[in-house]
């Protein structure tokens, strides 16, 4: 097991938008959990707070984007970096401390054992820890049913941003990745192209500081937009 890990090059992609209060704790926790098995890359999506200077202080590898691209564009920057530097595994972890670093190696194990091309950390398998608000859960269940209807596959937590993927998927994502609220659409994209997706149970935390970037008014618009995007993607044949 350890040997495999040593040979594998693993990149941790952390998209951060105004996460100055969370990022330092997160990085130190990751360092203590994962040792030097992984490289950490923070994508600072043009934050207006002190995220940049904090990342600089703790000497973390950071890409400071000159314009705000939104979560999709920020994460894709990470995948492009992973591709450029020939990483074997890329893992997405949100910058707000929702995702516990303890589970990173669980996700990695599935990839190294080649059980899946992408592994999603799901909070709804064991239903432990922070389960999100009621409205959010309704939205998530809706996407689960939509994906099940269109692809015949059950993904219990399609909006989870806690994901690991192998080299093939890194290549796909660096070519094409949806822009805002990208997770459900990218799952459809992978399923359509015949990639294997697995879920592992994780426990998530409520975000510590700051607000979630999705407001109530916007969420309805996003539901509609993402549904349409998934539906249209279902009708695409091959990657162009």
């Amino acid at each position: 097991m350890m040997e495999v890990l040593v040979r594998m090059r693993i990149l941790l992609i952390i998209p951060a938008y105004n996460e100055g209060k969370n990022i330092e704790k997160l990085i130190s926790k990751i360092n203590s959990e994962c040792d030097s098995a992984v490289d950490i890359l923070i994508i600072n999506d043009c934050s207006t707070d002190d995220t940049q200077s904090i990342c600089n202080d703790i000497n973390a590898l950071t890409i400071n984007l000159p314009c705000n691209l939104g979560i999709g564009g920020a994460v894709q920057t990470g995948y492009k970096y992973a591709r450029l530097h020939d990483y074997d595994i890329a893992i997405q972890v949100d910058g707000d401390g929702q995702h516990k670093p303890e589970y990173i190696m669980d996700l990695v194990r599935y990839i190294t054992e080649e059980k899946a091309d992408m592994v999603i950390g799901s909070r709804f398998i064991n239903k432990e820890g922070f389960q999100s608000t009621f409205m959010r859960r309704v939205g998530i269940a809706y996407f689960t049913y939509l994906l099940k209807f269109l692809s015949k596959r059950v993904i219990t937590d399609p909006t989870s941003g806690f994901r690991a993927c192998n080299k093939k998927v890194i290549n796909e994502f660096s070519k094409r990745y949806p822009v805002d609220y990208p997770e459900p659409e990218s799952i459809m994209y992978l399923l359509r192209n015949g990639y294997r997706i697995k879920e592992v149970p994780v426990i998530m935390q409520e975000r510590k500081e700051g607000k979630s970037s999705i407001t109530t008014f916007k969420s309805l618009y996003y539901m509609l937009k993402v549904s349409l995007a998934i539906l249209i993607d279902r009708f695409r044949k091959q990657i162009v």
Partner: protein
Amino acid sequence: MISLKLQVILIVGAIVCALFLFNLIKKYRLELKYTMLWLILMLIILMISIFPNFIGFLAHAMGIELPVNALFLLVSFCSYAILFSMTINASKSSTKVKELSQELGLLKLEVIRLTEELHKKEKNK
């Protein structure tokens, strides 16, 4: 009310346009984000042509004599909404291009400085 002829033209037109948009998105030539308003406009037109009573009601409420005129007013209003959203997007994009160009210019300067320093060091060796 609107005539049956106009009703059919509107329905066919809206469906053809929606399919055209759908196809372009499918081919990755349109971004869904900027197509949403067009799709909503087509949905409105479709709704009105299927339920023409609505436009009669609207015309009456607004004090317009002919329902067709209310339809024109509504559609031109929607077009202005789309135009305005385009203006917003153009402004956002131009700001981003400016930021990017500045960043690129700064980076270029840094690269030139670094290569010059490297050359100097090599000469000194």
